[in-house]
């Protein structure tokens, strides 16, 4: 075997090994997902019963129901979005339309990046110290919601900013040229044109809220009481689905209930991902 042949053999081995690694990795990733989803569904779906879905847990009857947790999840999503959406969109508008000081913009962007990198357990602790103790909200849905507002702010700011950047400068010039004031232009031209991006931000945020547990454990707590009045609901401790999963599995060893909740969460994740994709595609078509 001469030198050239040897080198070409080496190259063929290199080629083969790396090609195999690339395919194997992609396969592992897909297989992981399929196995995870399949396992959770197989173990969880048989235990999703009407009783589980539509009742509150009862110590007397010794039954477990996750209705309160479902409601708490919905409440906290609504609350968080209602507060975080205006602030986040406003911040994005400020960054792209108003701010002219480059230093200030980069500081705000750095702060946003930093917020995105802070782990949820730290949000939980600060939420507990600030909202629950300092402001006196106690361990309640209100504390949890306020904590999540800060947590999802970066997601909303970033996606809104991305879509604001795709609004053509000619729209702005056109509006201002016709004599519109800045606020009028933002209200009637800029925000409607970037609606898809804002919706994408909302969907991603919902995904984060649904999956969140560490930030809620010490702020919203694990309560399962249902009350008719919204005010009372928000002033009381309330566990979301993810928190309930953790509690049932870790504290009570109810693994079947855990898998049932996990299956529900997986369905939600699938739906949310699909919705985000759809909104993203719409955004792309427009741009």
């Amino acid at each position: 075997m001469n030198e050239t042949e040897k080198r070409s053999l080496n190259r063929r081995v290199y080629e083969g090994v790396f090609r195999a690694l690339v395919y194997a990795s992609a396969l592992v990733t897909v297989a992981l997902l399929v196995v995870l989803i399949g396992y959770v569904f197989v173990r969880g779906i048989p235990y999703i019963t009407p009783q589980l879905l539509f009742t509150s847990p009862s110590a007397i009857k010794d039954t477990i129901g996750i209705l309160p947790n479902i409601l708490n999840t919905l409440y906290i999503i609504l609350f968080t979005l209602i507060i975080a959406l205006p602030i986040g969109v406003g911040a994005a508008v400020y960054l792209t339309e108003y701010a002219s000081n480059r230093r200030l913009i980069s500081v705000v962007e750095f702060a946003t990046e930093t917020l995105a990198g802070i782990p949820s357990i730290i949000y939980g602790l600060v939420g507990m110290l600030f909202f629950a103790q300092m402001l006196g909200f106690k361990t309640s849905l209100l504390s949890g919601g306020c904590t999540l507002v800060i947590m999802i702010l970066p997601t909303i700011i970033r996606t809104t900013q991305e879509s604001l950047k795709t609004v053509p400068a000619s729209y702005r010039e056109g509006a201002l040229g016709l004599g519109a004031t800045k606020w009028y232009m933002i209200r009637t031209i800029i925000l409607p044109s970037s609606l898809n991006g804002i919706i994408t931000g909302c969907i991603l945020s919902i995904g984060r809220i649904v999956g969140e547990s560490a930030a809620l454990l010490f702020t919203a707590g694990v309560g399962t009481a249902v009350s008719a009045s919204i005010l009372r609901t928000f002033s009381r401790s309330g566990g979301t689905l993810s928190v309930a999963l953790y509690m049932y599995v870790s504290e009570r060893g109810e693994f079947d209930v855990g898998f049932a909740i996990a299956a529900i969460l997986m369905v939600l994740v699938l739906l949310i991902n699909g919705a985000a994709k759809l909104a993203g595609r719409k955004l792309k078509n427009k741009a």
Partner: protein
Amino acid sequence: MDMEQVKNPPKGAVFPARAGKEDPRKSAGRSLRKMVRDLVEQIMNGVFFACGMAAILAVLLITGYMILAGLPAIGQIGVTEFLFGTRWASTAADPQFGILPFILTSAWGTLGAILIGVPIGLFTAVFLAKVASPRVAGMVRPAVELLAGIPSVVYGLIGMMVLVPAMMDIFDLNNGTCLLAAILVLAIMILPSISSVSETALRAVPREYEEASLALGATWIETIFKVSIPAAKSGIVAGVVLGVGRAIGEAMAVMMVAGNVANMPQLFKSVTFLTTAVAKEMSYASGLQRQALFSIALVLFIFIMIINALLNFVLKKGDSHE
């Protein structure tokens, strides 16, 4: 008289005698409207400014609270004893607050997760960006995105029910909750972020680089690994740093599989991470123990801030490179 009035003379006709003169009432109304409009404009200016400052405020709030809550216990315990003490016995009669086991566990756990997660994530990114046909990539990419969306408690549950028993069988352990189980769960959890950031970086490599390499006789795989990946280096590093941040900050999934005993890190022993040390005891801690938990969180927070700064630095460098 402005254009509007020229085009549509207001009702009530314009008397020749008054032509050229403004109706005083109308002009007052217009200036009032202009005043209101300017006021609204000013207010919205302020509102948007306030929104823009919200993120800065939140970072300051979090930093402030972490420092305020974390420092007292460190002062009371002593910096060296706290950071380098090897024994954590917060509820003992003679409490010990050494968090070196947690720090080392977090470090080793993250390193392990990176060692497993980065190759798989990077190779998946190569597959998506360079090897797969658009159709196949269109089917694999959602899988990566879904992995990223799965809640950490679900990872924890599966780890607890599948991985932990498997550890007991394969390695013949009495107790399957161990560092290795946590590493595997973390590796899966950081895989999507590494993959998606690397894919973006790989896609941004100029086509000419690859064409030049192909024209010189390199095969496509050789081109990817010797030209594209080095060219996308800063983006890939950013993905890895992001993964480090995720791994070090993860609490719930790790808490469910790592056993939560304050051992020095060993692959097959139950261990406690920085995050789980806080999460596990916070619900019932009080006094100095509770304050010490905040100090642990402060240490974690400092690590995260360093990683954030690093990430920013890497991304900035990548930008200036292009």
